[in-house]
């Protein structure tokens, strides 16, 4: 929302514009520094949160199961694709890590700040448009998502009994997918955090997180849904699909995946849609 300074300061318009930009930038940086400071103090819970899901998943499905007799037949996807399940899992687990960070870094804290404590009121009083306060949440969450996604790499390298086959054809494409997916997941977290009533925030795991994860082409490539065309079309409304397919096409291009243009286009679409919804919800919550 552009703002007009209504006070006569006697300074030329250009420098007033410049000082307004400085004011916004400094306030935004202040909010980011505060979040960074709090995160640094809560580093241990952050590491646990980021590592636990991919670590356990890789441990059970790519280390324990292959050691059991007949374990391989429990992985129908990898059997069908002719690749190790760990290779299928790597991009999927990164997508889950990205999505989950968005929920944990934005939706859950917001539920607390909107609910009992109303802490958000102080940050809304920053000399910054309210939309920018909401956007800071998205950006900070995106940073955590990127860290969470990168953490999956060493885990996927060391844990599985059969090595992951990753190959990056285009680094710019990988970076683009990673950043788009991370910001989209922050916007998803903001949308959820501002839509769901604070006291019902516990429900989102069952109602939102689980369905979008399991139907998000995380544990199987989208192409593998060919035999179930209704489901294959149905999951297209799930933004996680484009995150996992995007990372799949960037990291393990040998596996079947969607067309990159479709992935980038849909990620951008969800980014714009969720950011708009999230910021609208945020404004509705804080401005009476």
């Amino acid at each position, binding site marked *: 929302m552009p703002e007009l300074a209504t006070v006569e300061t006697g300074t030329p318009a250009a420098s007033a514009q410049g000082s307004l930009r400085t004011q916004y930038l*400094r306030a935004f940086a202040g909010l980011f520094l505060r979040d960074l400071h709090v995160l640094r103090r809560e580093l241990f819970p952050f590491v646990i949160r980021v590592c636990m899901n991919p670590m356990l998943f890789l441990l059970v499905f790519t280390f324990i199961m292959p050691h059991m007799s007949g374990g391989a037949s429990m992985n129908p996807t990898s059997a069908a694709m002719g690749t190790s399940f760990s290779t299928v899992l790597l991009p999927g687990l990164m997508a889950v890590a990205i999505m989950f960070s968005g929920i944990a870094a934005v939706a859950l804290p917001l539920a607390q700040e909107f609910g009992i404590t109303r802490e958000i009121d102080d940050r809304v009083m920053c000399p910054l448009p309210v939309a920018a306060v909401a956007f800071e949440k998205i950006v900070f969450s995106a940073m955590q998502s990127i860290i969470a996604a990168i953490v999956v790499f060493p885990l996927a390298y060391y844990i599985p009994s059969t090595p992951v086959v990753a190959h990056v054809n285009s680094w710019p494409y990988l970076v683009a997918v990673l950043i788009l997916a991370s910001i989209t997941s922050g916007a998803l977290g903001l949308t959820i955090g501002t839509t769901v009533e604070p006291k019902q925030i516990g429900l989102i795991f069952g109602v939102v997180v689980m369905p979008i994860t399991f139907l998000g082409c995380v544990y199987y490539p989208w192409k593998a849904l060919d035999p179930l065309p209704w489901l294959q079309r149905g999951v297209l409304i799930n933004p996680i699909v484009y995150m996992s397919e995007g990372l799949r096409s960037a990291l393990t291009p040998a596996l079947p995946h969607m067309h990159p243009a479709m992935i980038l286009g849909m990620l951008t679409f969800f980014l714009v849609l969720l950011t708009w919804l999230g910021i609208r919800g945020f404004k509705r919550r804080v401005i009476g």
Partner: protein
Amino acid sequence: MIVEIEGLSKIYEGKQRVVAIDGIDLSVEAGSLFGFLGPNGAGKTTTISICTTRALPSAGRVRIAGIDVVQSPSQARRSIGVVPQYNTLDRACTVYENIHFHCLYFGFSRTEAQRRTTHLLEQFHLTERAQAYPAQLSGGLAQRVQIARAIAHHPKVLFLDEPSAGLDPQSRIAMWEAVKNLREEGITVVLTTHYMEEADELCDRVAIIDHGKILIEDTPAALKGSIGAQRVYELDLRNHAGIPQLIRTLGAQPGIASAEATAKGVRIFAGGTEGLLSEVVLAANPYGLRDLTITETSLETVFIRLTGRELRE
């Protein structure tokens, strides 16, 4: 005028249409201590929320230091400090960090923020608790941290919403001292309260507000003087049928400014200071006088006079 409110109204549309503010006009002079006095639900908090950019008006405009709060909220916020009714301290940060980060939000450099934070902690006697988290603070201390944080960026106007709600008497007096000291720094203070003693003790000017309207606005002394009486006699009568007759009799007595009917009996506004008691009792006895209370006129009397109701209902 540092705060200018013109034709302000706020209507919540919905199943039940609520008119929270019903056309308020008001100006607050720079450097003064201004109070909104009224019962709960009168529209005080809504007015403050609009002035501090946290709610949008249905009509009218508010300017703080010449800046329109609806058109340029983020510019207006630089001139505004707020202490809301509830504790909004950042629970994840210590007392020191709460003030320090607040300074950073308002564009202070790290050194400036450090200096300002240390200074404020000293000024509000919080240095010892600098490393405590908000959850470890008592209500009075948390309130002090909130005030310190609210003025950290040198706002021109500080808004305090029900600052003494939930405070013990000792903390309330400490808070009053802190607020009075702010005036010496040249900060204009606007506060809301439903405690008449608070408005009387602290404020240069008071606006009495009820049902979203300002009923009267003046200095506490002038408001109390407007009653034209120094004492209020509340009579509790058994025989209500004779009340009009009694009011006529009492009204004719010298020393009685006026008398009016209440739900329980009669209320007398007395100008004189003494000698009235026996005459009042004598006149009221035939009507079954059950009880009698005498109070000094206060802002509460003014409120009762204007609305016919008591402030704390």
